[in-house]
């Protein structure tokens, strides 16, 4: 139980001959919310994919103390659930059927879903206020509603580690807050661990316990939001003109037009 939810040590990943991650270390304690920030192409999504087991590379990735390579696929799927940046929305599939896909790691290879699986899906849909949508077609839902359904599928997986790749990039600011408040509430109630990537730095800082700034495939800074969201660090790695203002829940990063 004392093993961290995620332990990444000296992870190196190259895609098509280009090094994307060049020796990354990362630890996420159980129950913690860590958000990875960094400029485009820094390797945020790649890091998340490696933790989710979709990529392998030299270096160590362990989930709750078990090296990820030692987990069978179905075991891994019960430990870690991913919400992709822009998940595929299968044509014609209902919200219920889509959420039921989350039960895949529990359904025997040649078998069918059990009553417990169906009950789990109903429970998750109710929890996320998606009950009335259960038989709607996923494709007909709005962006905010869809994002809740994607979360519902991940929760139906029953995994305690949630990987969120840009969970709010397609949402307006109100729905961003709604979704992130929901994630935080679920995290507290179910003891989930959250590892996310985000572009909006203020929001990233408000919701995460710790931030990890990734730049050029390396960890440039890591720590509580007020240590990472500094004008000096952000100006250097994002090449951006910004001002950092103290806020109620963490520093607020404001873009300022260069003079």
């Amino acid at each position, binding site marked *: 139980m004392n093993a961290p939810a995620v332990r990444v040590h000296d992870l190196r990943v190259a895609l098509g001959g280009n090094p994307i991650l060049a020796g990354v270390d990362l630890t996420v304690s159980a129950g913690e919310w860590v958000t990875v920030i960094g400029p485009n192409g820094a390797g945020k999504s790649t890091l998340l*994919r490696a933790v*989710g*087991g*979709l990529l392998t590379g030299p270096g160590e990735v362990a989930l709750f103390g078990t090296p990820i390579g030692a987990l069978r*696929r*179905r*075991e*891994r*799927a*019960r430990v*870690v*659930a*991913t919400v*992709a940046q822009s*998940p*595929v929305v*299968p*044509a*014609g*599939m*209902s919200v219920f*059927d*889509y959420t039921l*896909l*989350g039960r*895949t*790691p529990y*359904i025997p290879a*040649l078998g*069918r879903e059990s009553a417990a699986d169906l009950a789990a899906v109903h429970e998750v849909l109710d929890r996320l206020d998606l009950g009335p949508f259960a038989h709607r077609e996923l494709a007909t839902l709005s962006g905010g509603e869809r994002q809740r359904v994607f979360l519902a599928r991940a929760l139906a*997986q029953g995994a305690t580690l949630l990987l969120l790749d840009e969970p709010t990039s397609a949402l307006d600011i109100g729905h961003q807050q709604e979704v992130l408040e929901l994630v935080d509430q679920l995290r507290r109630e179910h003891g989930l661990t959250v590892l996310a990537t985000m572009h909006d730095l203020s929001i990233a800082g408000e919701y995460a316990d710790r931030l990890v700034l990734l730049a050029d495939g390396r960890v440039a800074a890591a720590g509580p939001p007020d240590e990472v969201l500094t004008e000096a660090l952000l100006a250097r790695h994002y090449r951006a003109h910004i001002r950092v203002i103290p806020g109620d829940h963490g520093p607020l990063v404001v873009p300022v037009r260069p003079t």
Partner: protein
Amino acid sequence: MFVALVAGVSLGPVSLPPGSVAAELLNLLPGVRLDSGLTEREIAIITELRLPRVVLGLLVGALLALAGGCYQGVFRNPLADPYLLGVAAGAGFAVTTAIVLGAGAGGALTGLPITIPLAAFVGSLGAVVLTYLLGAAGGRDRSPATLILAGVAVSAFFGAGQTYLLQQHSDNIQQVYSWLLGRLATAGWHDVWLVLPYFVLTAVVVLLHRRELDVLSVGDDEATGLGLHPQRSRYLLIAAASLGTAAAVSASGLIGFVGIIVPHTMRLLFGSSHRIILPLSMLFGGAFLALTDVVARTAAAPAEIPIGVVTALLGGPFFVLVLRTARRVAM
């Protein structure tokens, strides 16, 4: 399906009353004894001529619809069907070759009943393997689109080869054409027994794995995240569907439209989950082809229209109708 069965057996050059036919069909079940009032000759027509043909129609229709629905799921492409991967073209080419070579050898080769099924198997499985290899050569990330492109190329290649062969041996064109356009005409129990084992194998494998098709529909990355081996599932399902296609093609030639129309009709009517769509596609595919065969036999009696022509003629407008009604309901 029982309606299709009775209609298929009743209608033909010698018309039989549907009620009697239904009774006689029930008589085939163990423990049932009904008086149908038919003569022995009429009973023979039922059990030896019409029944095997209708049963073959059911099997072939079910296989084509199942294979089509399976391909559409595996490739996440609504246009995928047994023809897309070059499966049918490969079988067509191989059978043409067999007929042409057989004629050169004095007809001894084509006289053997096993030659054409064998050629179809070799051709379709060869075409699938070729499609894989071509698709794999397209790069390390073998996306579904690459495989489909490879299938189209393989189809064109075999189609060209077939055209060339036909041009060179125009005296055999009639025989090849009647096969190419599809026929259930010469079907006896022999053909049914030939198809049955492949039917069972394909149906069992695909139906047992049909949940995985739903998982594959969210893409390989997410399917992996859900604990699946996407590539492994895909190959297994493709292999099973191709085997089923080969069996169907070898028994009845090239019958188009069933593999694409039936699954789509089911999808429009009953949603997108493969758990439901695939078994229903099998049932309706079988019934659809058996009924189509009735039309093929009776519309221009005593001559027969190739069944492939009828499936396209009936299927096209029918599909448009379903598409329109489903749209209206959705709105």
